[in-house]
């Protein structure tokens, strides 16, 4: 439809802008929705409570940390849903992995290498992620080779792994976790500080610019249509601006005065008049999420594995006829989901400072909702990593926002559930109109 009007008439300013910048309308839509939620909660807070708490460095920093765990798993759920499967077990598997890591670092390793030994956090993380990968691989094998529907396998997994976590711990809470391990969950110490954040920001900015320049060079080499120079600059400036903005934001959130006082006392620093300003900077779980996003985006867009994931989702039979081993792919996809769940378990239990068998309860629903709100189609073949992570941010923003303005838990559930259904409906409308 838009194609016809574009060729017949002079394309409008907006159309021309979208064409030249090659921006994804869906991405813009999601960013717009997110901005609306953020501003909405802020203004509502300002009007009804006299204080808009949402758009503050402190809240946005916390929001980023709270999103990390769900966001990491959502990156894996995208693959599962694209290939027309579902994973209902991730919450339970998260609890199971957390418990495994908990007993590794609380019950076993201290006896072997001594309490608070430097290697404990590494071994614990590896054990947790291996456990997650194995659980996922078992699910994948049952689905692919025994032809049991993913819904059933992972519904069974939801019960099995939660029960297993309880059996291992006998219902006890496993704590205290290793202090280095706990840094992976964020908090004032679990963040990289102002300088570290600038280093991360500069690397990201260089990467963005390099990608733009390399992309242009590739297009030239193959004689494809180039983006106009102004569009390249526009995208570059917006992207670098976003990076710098994020760094400024996380650096604007200082450590609480109590922690600053203790830190100053421990390091013999005189606290100046008006207090000492120590920035949080990016929290470590957020950096883990960023790394997952980058790696998974490359995997999905630039590797054969990712291409086959989409192909299987689009037409499983065609994928098999093209020589793709679809069964083995299913095992790998679920193993990857399990690995990311294990990684998410690291973040979640480190943030809590302990491991309990109830950790991650209902997470599967939030992860699936994040992926679906982010544009992953349950009928398969369609979905993006950035979409799922944005979806996770939308979910978390809604919840955080409602807590800030004092809605109680029941209302939160009603709203989150309603938004999920509404988001899928809007996505359907978008898809129909873009066809």
């Amino acid at each position, binding site marked *: 439809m838009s194609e016809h009007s574009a060729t017949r008439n002079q394309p409008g300013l907006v159309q021309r802008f979208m064409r030249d910048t090659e921006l994804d309308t869906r991405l813009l839509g999601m960013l717009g929705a997110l901005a609306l939620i953020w501003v909405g909660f802020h203004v509502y807070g300002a009007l009804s409570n006299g204080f808009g708490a949402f758009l503050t460095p402190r809240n946005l920093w916390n929001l980023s940390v709270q999103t990390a765990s769900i966001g990491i798993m959502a990156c894996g759920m995208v693959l599962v849903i694209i290939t027309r499967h579902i994973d209902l077990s991730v919450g339970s598997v998260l609890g199971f992995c957390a418990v495994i890591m908990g007993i590794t670092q609380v019950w076993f390793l201290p006896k072997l290498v001594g309490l608070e030994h430097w290697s404990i956090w590494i071994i614990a993380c590896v054990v947790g992620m291996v456990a997650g990968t194995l659980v996922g691989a078992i699910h994948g094998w049952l689905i692919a080779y025994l032809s049991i529907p993913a819904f059933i396998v992972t519904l069974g997994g939801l019960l099995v792994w939660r029960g297993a976590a309880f059996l291992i711990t006998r219902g006890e809470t496993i704590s205290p976790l290793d202090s280095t391990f706990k840094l992976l969950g964020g908090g004032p110490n679990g963040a990289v500080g102002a300088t570290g954040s600038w280093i991360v920001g500069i690397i990201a900015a260089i990467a963005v610019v390099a990608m733009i320049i390399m992309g242009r060079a590739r297009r030239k080499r*193959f004689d494809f249509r180039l983006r106009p120079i102004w569009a390249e600059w526009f995208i570059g400036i917006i992207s670098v601006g976003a990076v710098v903005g994020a760094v400024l934001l996380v650096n604007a959130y200082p450590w609480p005065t109590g922690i600053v006082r203790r830190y100053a006392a421990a390091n013999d620093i005189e606290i100046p008049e008006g207090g000492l300003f120590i920035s949080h900077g990016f929290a470590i779980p957020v950096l883990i999420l960023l790394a997952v996003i980058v790696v998974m985006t490359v995997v999905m867009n630039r*590797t*054969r594995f990712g*291409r086959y994931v*989409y*192909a299987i989702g689009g*037409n499983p039979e065609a994928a098999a*006829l*093209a020589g*793709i081993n679809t069964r083995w792919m299913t095992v790998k996809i679920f193993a990857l989901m399990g690995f990311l769940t294990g990684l998410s378990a690291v973040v979640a239990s480190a943030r809590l400072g302990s491991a309990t068998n109830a950790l991650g309860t209902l997470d599967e629903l939030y992860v699936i909702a994040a992926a679906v709100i982010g544009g992953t189609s349950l009928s398969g073949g369609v979905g993006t990593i950035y979409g799922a992570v944005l979806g996770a941010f939308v979910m978390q923003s809604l919840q955080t926002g409602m807590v800030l303005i004092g809605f109680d838990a029941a209302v939160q559930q009603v709203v989150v559930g309603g938004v999920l259904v509404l988001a899928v409906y809007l996505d359907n409308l978008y898809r129909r109109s873009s066809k």
Partner: protein
Amino acid sequence: MSSKTNTGTPLIDMRDICISFGGVHAVDHVSVDLYPGEVVGLLGHNGAGKSTLIKILSGAYKMDSGEIYVNGERADIRSPRDARRYNIETIYQTLALADNLDAASNLFLGRELTSPLGLVDDDAMESEARKIMARLNPNFQKFKDPVSALSGGQRQSVAIARAVYFNAQILIMDEPTAALGPHETQMVSELITQLKAEGIGIFLISHDIHDVMELCDRASVMKNGKLVGTVDVADVTDDDLLSMIILGKQPGKAA
């Protein structure tokens, strides 16, 4: 053209092929062969076993018994990958395209071009796709769209491009014109003639007797999983072929 006698080694020699699904003999002791530069039509009712026979050759099904020889050598085809290794390419009736991927991704599916780092090189693939499509279907422009946005003919040309691009020696075409308009059907006919001239052997599955009479050198007719017979197209009439398909009788014996 059909009066030429096929001497030498056949490109494909399928001998005594059997496969059954749950007790039904879908293909029952069938033997067919194919020589370079030859088009062999496979005819029969729905469910006669044509597509099943061809899926054994393309690696989609594993036969229960029988032997396949490619260029005179025993070939072990267990998967679509194996078939491709023997330069056997297939255009399926369903086209077997992933609707959510673009033309280039479908063209190279399972055989992606990669950069030195091992990453999929989309630009190189699109560039190659543009070259082959310029030859097959010069009007084709929708390289950025998923193939679900293409017309039937455009989708067909993507499926054909995939088979032709990788230098097939043996081409299997399952109902290649079933979904096409007259213009596109003409295009496929011309392509078959051109490929034949290049020495490629083609198995053509078709319902359309006229297609077969026009394009094929020989025709093998199947009924209920069994081979009725193989005839030189020049020696038979439309009615002969029809009676083979419907009655399962060899024309010589019937006369």
